[in-house]
């Protein structure tokens, strides 16, 4: 012990006590309306306590005192150096209508890559089924491999949606939650340096390509469009956006063309990832409702022309929204 502990404690303890009082106040009210003098006084207390910690660390072997002061300094540091507010805050509708499309556009190259990977998957699925029709049961999930498209269309015309009419709510909820989970998983797999995201995008493309070829080859193109377009015109872009977010995450992890440390690269993309995840969830909810309450009804209940037209309008509106949304907002 080199410090005169008695004298040291006599002079320092009132400072620590005052700092503790300030900290307790700040931890209960992180945004207090302190004037400049109060803020400066608090900062001085923090600086003085930091200096005391340095003295204690070097001039005594008091572990308990050192731990106490380290904790005071750590809490003060966390209270003083709070990072600025994140961009994109504001009312929810503004977040969705402006921040979301702006975030999507900020990473347009990743969206293009995501769409490209999906299309490559589509091409692979289409060619694979064309070359080897027996692969249908392997490539197509959800029982599509059990019947031909024509058999399904006939069945749907007889059922007229009765098979689902008693379970539309449950079916819709399952679609929403399942698709949102898949989308978030696609995003999260960006942490595999983007490889997991790439695989999922490609796999979804394979299914889409194989289903398309199956229905077209069986002469059921109109049914296919009427079935897929109403919900797919939102659900498929939502999957592509999830892939985009995963690729953004993977890119931040790898750091091509960016010399910042990894954690700063990741920190930079976090707000956009959250905004995109929220937007994707909203799109998935919409797609789930449409798939359950609209897509599953076919002619003669709902004319195909109406379903296809609805899907085309939705797709155009979504594209316009993502291209133009938030264009006039300068702060996003």
């Amino acid at each position, binding site marked *: 012990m080199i410090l005169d502990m008695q004298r040291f404690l006599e002079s320092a303890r009132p400072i620590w006590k005052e700092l503790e009082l300030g900290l307790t106040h700040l931890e209960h009210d992180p945004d207090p309306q302190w004037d400049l003098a109060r803020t400066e006084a608090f900062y001085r207390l923090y600086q003085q306590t*930091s200096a005391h910690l340095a003295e204690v660390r070097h001039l005594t072997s008091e572990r308990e005192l050192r731990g106490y002061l380290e904790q005071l300094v750590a809490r003060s540091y966390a209270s003083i*150096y709070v990072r600025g507010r994140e961009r994109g805050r504001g009312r929810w509708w503004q977040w969705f209508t402006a921040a979301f499309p702006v975030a999507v556009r900020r990473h347009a190259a990743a969206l293009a890559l995501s769409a490209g990977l999906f299309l490559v998957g589509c091409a692979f699925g289409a060619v694979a089924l064309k070359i080897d029709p027996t692969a249908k049961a392997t490539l197509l999930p959800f029982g599509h491999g059990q019947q031909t498209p024509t058999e399904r269309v006939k069945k749907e015309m007889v059922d007229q949606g009765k098979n689902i009419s008693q379970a539309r709510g449950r079916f819709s909820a399952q679609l929403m939650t399942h698709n949102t989970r898949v989308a978030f998983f696609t995003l999260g797999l960006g942490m595999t340096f983007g490889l997991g995201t790439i695989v999922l995008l490609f796999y979804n493309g394979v299914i889409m390509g194989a289903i398309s070829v199956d229905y077209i080859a069986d002469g059921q193109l109109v049914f296919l469009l009427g079935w897929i377009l109403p919900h797919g015109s939102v659900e498929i872009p939502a999957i592509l956006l999830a892939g985009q977010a995963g690729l953004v995450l993977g890119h931040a992890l790898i750091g091509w063309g960016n010399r910042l440390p990894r954690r700063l690269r990741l920190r930079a993309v976090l707000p956009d990832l959250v905004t995109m995840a929220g937007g994707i969830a909203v799109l998935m909810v919409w797609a789930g409702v449409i798939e359950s309450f609209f897509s599953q009804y076919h002619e003669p209940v709902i004319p195909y022309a109406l379903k296809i037209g609805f899907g085309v309008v939705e797709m155009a509106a979504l594209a316009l929204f993502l291209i133009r949304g938030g264009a006039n907002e300068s702060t996003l």
Partner: protein
Amino acid sequence: MKALYNEAKLELRTPEGMEFTLPLAGPVSRLLALAIDMAVVMVAGSVVQKVIAVLAAFNADAAQGLGTVLYFVISMLYSILAEWLWQGQTLGKRLLGIRVMDRDGLPIHLSQIVVRNLLRPVDMLPAFYLVGGLAALGTRYGQRVGDLAANTVVVRARQLEPPDWQKLLAGKFNSMLEHPHLAARLRQRTAPELAGVALDALVRRDQLEDSARIELFRELAGIFRRLVEFPAEAVEALSDEQYVRNAVEILHRSR
């Protein structure tokens, strides 16, 4: 038995140049916190199911759909909302005294909370949080994949009580100061260079290897012992390092 996990600390440096450490939460406390949080979600889910069972009497399909959505929302939002409202803590983390913090020792932002929880399914792969557990054990700051993406760490949040001041002062007297004439002789005979080296050794003690530290203080204590011989009852219980501390206090303390 050797522990499989050694306490890890997050070392930080403030812009003022002050260094401090935050103790990281161990795997067991994190696992227990997770188990509690999973139980909370299950209980909330079962309450939802009871409510849904009542509502099903009016419209079974809508009630079941609502139940599915509500359970999904609870399981997704519980951790996010709790960590947002309780500044990095869920119920489990509160009970276990641990907290999520920014990797730089700052409070976490909402975007960090959302991302670390969105990536939970990746941590859960292939089962029983294997990926997350291996990542936490394999990374320097015990970060699972979600933590790595969000730049967060889980620290022990236990607030230390102020030390017992009386205890701190008691028994800390310098036995060598009980002999002021010998202390004065030590001041007189000690070269300024030696006083500087001894102080430097104490300041940098934590940076020295254990064996080097023991050797250094043995040498320094030997030099001081040879300079002035204090009565045995004043110094016999002192370790070499404590002997040097007492000597340095005599040399550097203002009289």
